[in-house]
């Protein structure tokens, strides 16, 4: 790479500079190394975010370019906030996110506890549990859509045979069942990630602790409540935060199964934003709804974060 003479010169120079204190604190190359990635993030996430906010202050109807893009202040926000669809979407988002959160955490914790004890075939069981997480979300959703099929779906066939229902139900086509059906898919897909994190957390608990607790006569529940749970708490909080963010922002599962329908029964804020943009072509209202969506999430996360800090102080 470097010619011989030059190399020797370099070595001498490096040695000389190495001896100078602070040589390793020279930082400009660090900025140069970080710069390209930061530019990419600013270009693809930062700038569009600013642009989204600017767009939300203008009237932009894509299919009516002749109207121009007049500045309208916060009119889009008012329109969105007043719309009954928005309050519906807030409610659907609340149901969607909280059931996802509770379902994934409860199942994830239960399965993590089961898979944490030693038994033959545990490795295989763990690998199998990761399948839903690994398979592409579009593939997962389409498979569930097929299983939910009103006429030839395996779920209907199974339930009819059990005698739970008399004939096939269009799970995704009824306002009463669509949300539940999509939620089941989503919990199925999301639980393995929670499981991985909790398993890692469980394995970090020193075995001596639970052992000595059982020697002291603690039963299974007491061991879980007073040894395992406090140790696992930080991991649970992180898992809960991530699950909240992921579910809240989820688009694929709902869009591919129901497109927010039937009759907006599964229309979360994410879906509403997308529909405003690419069904109504109303980019102003869509970005306003998107900004509001973000702030609602922020409130969620701040409340969580506070809770987390508080729980940390208790220990």
């Amino acid at each position, binding site marked *: 790479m470097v010619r011989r003479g030059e190399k020797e010169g*370099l*070595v001498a120079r490096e040695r000389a500079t*190495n001896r100078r204190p602070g040589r*390793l604190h020279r930082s400009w*190359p*660090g*900025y140069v*190394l*970080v710069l*390209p*990635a930061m530019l*990419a*993030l600013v*270009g*693809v*996430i*930062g*700038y*569009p975010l600013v*642009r*989204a906010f600017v*767009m939300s202050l203008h009237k932009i109807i894509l299919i009516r370019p002749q109207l121009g893009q007049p500045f309208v202040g916060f009119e889009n926000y008012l329109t969105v906030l007043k719309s009954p669809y928005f309050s519906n979407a807030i409610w659907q988002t609340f149901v969607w996110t909280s059931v996802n959160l509770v379902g994934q955490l409860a199942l994830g914790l239960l*399965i993590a506890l*089961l898979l944490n*004890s030693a*038994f033959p075939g*545990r490795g295989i069981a763990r690998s*199998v*549990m990761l*399948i*839903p997480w*690994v*398979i*592409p979300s579009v*593939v*997962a959703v*389409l*498979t*569930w859509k*097929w*299983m939910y099929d009103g006429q*030839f*779906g*395996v779920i*209907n*066939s199974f339930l009819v045979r059990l005698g739970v229902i008399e004939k096939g139900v269009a799970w995704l086509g009824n306002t009463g069942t669509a949300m539940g059906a999509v939620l089941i898919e989503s919990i199925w897909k999301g639980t393995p990630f929670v499981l991985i*994190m909790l398993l*890692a957390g469980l394995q970090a608990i020193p075995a001596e602790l639970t052992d000595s607790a059982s020697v002291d006569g603690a039963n299974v529940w007491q061991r879980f409540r007073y040894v395992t749970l406090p140790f696992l708490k930080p991991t649970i909080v*992180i898992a809960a935060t991530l699950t909240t*963010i992921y579910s809240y*922002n989820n688009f694929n599962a709902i869009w*591919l199964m129901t497109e927010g329908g039937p009759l907006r029964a599964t229309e979360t804020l994410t879906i509403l*934003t*997308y529909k405003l*943009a690419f069904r109504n072509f109303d980019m102003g209202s869509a*970005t306003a709804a*998107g900004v509001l969506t*973000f702030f609602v*999430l*922020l409130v969620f996360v701040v409340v969580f974060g506070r809770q987390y800090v508080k729980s940390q102080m208790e220990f």
Partner: protein
Amino acid sequence: MAAAGLRRRARRLPAMLAAFFICFVFAIPFLWMILTSLKLPSELFTSPVQVFPRSGVYWEAYTRIWTAGQFGRYFWNSTLVASIATSASVALSVFAAIGFARYKLKGGNYLLLGVLLSQLFPLVLLVPPFYTVLRELRILDTHLALVIAYTSFALPFSIWMLTGYFRSIPAELEESAMIDGATRLGAQLRVILPLAGPGIAATVIYSFILAWNEFLFATTFISSPELRTLPIGLQSFIGQYSTDWNLLMAGAVVTTVPVIVLFVFLQRYLVAGLTAGAVKG
């Protein structure tokens, strides 16, 4: 002693059975996807539903899928977009992580936190402005648009994870390489990269899977059928009149195979990296 061990094992039996039962339930959709792809099209539309293919395993769906539609094209498009985005993303994040891990940057930790927080923004909020910008740049409906987006989306997690990884490698190693005549960056690359193999493997699989699976941007920005990636290609199998589930599920299996293969090879690294990042985060 032996009796006590046996008793303890017997007590574990219910937990073990419960674990296997839950695993089985979680595996059902995956199994159903494979079973559907191996049945005769006529066997799919029976009532009650038939679990196993009755007239022998039907492999034709897997050959038909490459000839019937544009599936081969979608597969190639996905491979192309995911490979380029992965290479670009891994290169950018390796450099950035060396910067964060090895240099004292003013506000470096805040920057790193900002990188992570950028994950918080709903992707759907980015779609309308992104659409507008792509149109202004005249790269709407191109693979370039997807490559740019996927490269950046993979960055936050990759930078975060690699920075943690690089910090765990002692800096003395580089210093001795530097004394041997390498430049600072040369020493870093030569010393860090081989040691950070697992970390880099994890970012490769993460970036590739992200690009391979992405649906929202692809479905919004790509309108030409010949430019479709696998996720939107698969969705287009859902016909207006009837859906060829047999073919669709074969396509789903073929789409899943590269991800599973990558995952089986690299799962240890990814899970370790994910949990390390999560626990630190």
